[in-house]
């Protein structure tokens, strides 16, 4: 890996909706595994990505119970990214937009996620080595 850098990502899509969330988390995971420090600002529906009350469901149509169906949950992917960061010696700072959280009643998030404001994104954009905004459509 090259020198450790700080990269900022802004996500806007809610979980379970489209491939952008998966791609965003793949990018973040790749950055973390390569030892970079990563800031994530979750805005609008993206505050639901680390929402800790997500729960796996069964797929009765195909005859699977919840434990058999192994339904993927974005909150678990976020937690895994946090673990990878610890192993790789990189830092992940995840901020959920507080207003967006309150609007949606999504105060509960996995460990490592904190509340903030769009001002945090501006500060990060000014101090990071690079920033990628992944807007919703």
């Amino acid at each position, binding site marked *: 890996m090259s020198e450790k*850098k700080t990269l900022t990502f802004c996500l806007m899509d809610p979980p379970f909706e489209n491939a952008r969330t998966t*791609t965003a988390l793949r*990018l973040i995971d790749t950055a973390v595994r*390569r030892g*970079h420090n990563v800031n994530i600002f979750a805005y609008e529906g993206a505050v639901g990505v680390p929402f800790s009350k997500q729960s796996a469901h069964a797929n009765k149509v195909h005859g699977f119970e919840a434990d058999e169906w192994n339904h993927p949950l974005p909150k678990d992917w976020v937690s895994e990214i946090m673990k990878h960061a610890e192993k790789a010696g990189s830092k992940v700072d995840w901020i959920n937009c507080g207003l967006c959280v309150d609007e949606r009643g999504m105060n509960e998030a996995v460990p490592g996620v904190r509340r903030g404001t769009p001002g945090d994104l501006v500060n990060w954009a000014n101090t990071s*080595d*690079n920033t990628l905004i992944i807007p919703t459509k």
Partner: protein
Amino acid sequence: MAYFYDLASGLKERGNTVTLFLIQNGVLPARKNPSDSTLAKLATAGVNILADHLSLQERGIEDNALVDGVASAELDVVIDQMADGVKTLWH
């Protein structure tokens, strides 16, 4: 999509180094298609065109089915370029 192809082409014409990284359904136009030469023209113009390996795999697109000038690549390329300070736009 056409707008972004034009943006990549325009940036290249102005002397910039440009990489177009195709991902998710964005890899679908990377398949060889006799009726659409847009990506081939971009590659000929000097735009570096890459297609996400996982997105290609998910859609059953083999490397030998790609338009000339388009190469399969891992997502690491994006992170490496971001770490190098390359301006990155999502479309």
